[in-house]
């Protein structure tokens, strides 16, 4: 494996600017890595070799002419296959869209193109981003680079695994209930869900519109800040997009101190139901932050106990509405039923064949929650709980600057372990969901390896709406202290992936 791919995006940006490496060499090194290891990881649904190399060549040509370039120009990136791209297929991990090509680019993709970042390809996900393990992809599961028999988290397991396996230095994810942060925790990588509306969702295939958010997936906190600054900002094409400027996120990541900051430990997101090794690593991070001069206090958010229930009413309700557009008429696949082919029957047959089990479950659940006689009791009540959760955050942030919790209650579980038990799968998102319900930003960074299984543990930081910079400030300091303790990045402890052959029976 080329040493080049071990570098962070910030380091690569420096090497490119200094002429130590060309964008073509760098892109090729990542394409080689994908060819060597993705047979066992299955992070990519599509590899965009020709276009990526062409963009890289453009960057090299522009640089040799002395043209001004974006700092991330020539740094390759992978894109979650929920985000539409011209010239590359977008499947959303579903048979429904197998073979579909978007006629337009998502706003974040336009920004990536404008910055001349070579797009390496599209990454695997749970179908329509519905899941916590990437096992609900219609194109086979992604495997965790730390242990190929374990899930990489979900829904953005492909993006997280690609970054963890050094197939890409950067990736884009989407987070509706934890789909960026939880895979970050499972794979020992960094993932950020920005403030709701902080990054345009135009061109992100909608699951639950009041919760969905695009964000960065990286190996370091600084890299997330760099990518977040590029993709953030107002977009008139997304009417939920905030008009605020992105803010000095990179500067925050470089600040290097937390002294005097008040950090609140959320009582409800710790303790019972959390794996021992997760709790130990969480305590360790708290001690480090305290040692760096932060004031650690406990805060209570009593309504978080209802967050999972509210989420599993609001999300399927919105999803059932958003997914009504897959009707076999305007895009995607059409299945003709036997006998008479009226539009009604075509829709029924198309949606039966095109959607997988989890998507059907959520559509039916959402249809139920929104149906006459149940709307007030379910959807209406869930929206009230949402208010209570926002109030809990408001009360907590009146006392502290940031909140902290484990990102997920456990480390990566085994493939197949929770596939037959949807409720157990949902419980994995218990710590990440409140942020989506309230729209606040959240960041997950690696907090070490759990003693009992040697798998990564995620630490989650949460900040008030529009205060994403605080996440980067605290996250970068904690990351530095942890890496000092480990003697390098956590991913340096990951087992070496054998290149060029399948490692586990049944992979791909």
């Amino acid at each position, binding site marked *: 494996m080329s040493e080049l791919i071990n570098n962070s995006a910030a380091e690569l940006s420096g090497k490119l600017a200094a002429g130590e490496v060309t964008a073509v060499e760098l892109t090729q090194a990542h394409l080689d890595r994908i060819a060597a290891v993705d047979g066992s990881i299955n992070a990519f649904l599509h590899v965009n070799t020709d276009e990526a190399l062409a963009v890289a060549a453009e960057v090299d040509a522009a640089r040799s002419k002395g043209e001004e370039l974006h700092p991330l120009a020539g740094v390759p990136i992978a894109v979650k296959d929920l985000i539409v791209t011209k010239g590359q297929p977008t499947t959303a991990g579903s048979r429904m869209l197998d073979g*579909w*090509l978007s*006629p337009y680019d998502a706003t974040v993709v336009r920004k990536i193109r404008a910055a001349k970042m070579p797009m390496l390809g599209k990454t695997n996900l749970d179908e329509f981003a519905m899941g916590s393990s990437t096992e609900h992809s219609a194109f086979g599961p992604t495997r965790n680079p730390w242990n190929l028999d374990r899930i990489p988290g979900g829904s953005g397991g492909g993006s997280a695994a690609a970054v963890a396996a050094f197939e890409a230095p950067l990736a884009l994810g989407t987070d509706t209930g934890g789909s960026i942060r939880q895979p970050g925790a499972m794979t020992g990588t960094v993932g950020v869900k920005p*403030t709701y*509306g902080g990054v345009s969702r135009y061109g992100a295939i909608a699951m639950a519109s*009041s*919760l969905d958010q695009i964000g960065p997936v990286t190996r370091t906190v600084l890299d997330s800040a760099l990518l977040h600054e590029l993709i953030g900002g107002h977009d*008139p094409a997304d*009417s*939920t997009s905030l008009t605020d400027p992105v803010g000095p996120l990179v500067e925050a990541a470089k600040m290097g101190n937390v002294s005097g900051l008040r950090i609140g430990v959320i009582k409800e997101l710790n303790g019972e139901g959390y794996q021992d090794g997760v709790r130990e690593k969480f305590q360790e991070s708290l001690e480090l932050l305290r040692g760096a001069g932060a004031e650690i206090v406990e805060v209570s958010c009593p*309504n978080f106990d209802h967050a*999972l*229930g*509210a989420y*599993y*009413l609001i999300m399927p309700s919105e999803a059932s509405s958003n997914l*009504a557009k897959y*009707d076999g*008429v*305007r*895009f*995607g696949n*059409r299945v*003709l039923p036997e006998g*008479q082919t*009226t*539009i009604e*029957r075509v829709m*029924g047959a198309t*949606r*039966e064949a095109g*959607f997988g089990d989890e998507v*059907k*479950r959520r*559509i*039916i*659940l959402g*249809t*139920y929650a929104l*149906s006459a006689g*149940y709307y007030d*009791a*379910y959807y*209406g*009540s*869930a*929206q*009230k*709980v*949402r*208010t*209570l959760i*926002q109030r809990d955050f408001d009360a907590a942030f009146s006392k502290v600057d940031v909140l902290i919790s484990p990102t997920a209650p456990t480390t990566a579980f085994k493939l197949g372990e929770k596939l037959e038990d*949807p*409720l157990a799968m*949902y419980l994995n998102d218990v710590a990440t969901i409140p942020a989506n*319900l*309230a*729209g606040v930003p959240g960041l997950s960074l690696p907090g070490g390896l759990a003693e009992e299984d040697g798998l990564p543990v995620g630490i989650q930081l949460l900040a008030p*709406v529009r205060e994403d910079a605080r996440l980067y400030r605290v996250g970068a300091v904690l990351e530095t202290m942890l890496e000092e303790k480990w003697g390098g990045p956590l991913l340096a402890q990951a087992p070496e992936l054998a290149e060029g052959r399948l490692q586990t029976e049944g992979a791909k």
Partner: protein
Amino acid sequence: MSTLRREQVAHLARLAHIDMADDELDRMAGELDVIVDSIKSISEAAGDDVPATSHPIPLANVYREDVVGETLTNEEALSGAPDSADGRFKVPAILDED
């Protein structure tokens, strides 16, 4: 609150335009029953005086200038359609013949 019966799931599947075979309906009813059971306490979590939140960061109506923006060409709009004719989406029969 009532639990989800098989007939109810069949009705919901019809509303959602998803054909479901008998065994799938049985399985779905069982799974959804467990899920609904675990979330139904939500209806008692908040009092009547709590307002509903539909959007995490409320924005007032968002308008733009009434000018033609960037639009897809007819060809682009139809490029992903399963069937089209004369520059339009081609839809199967709307009405049953019988």
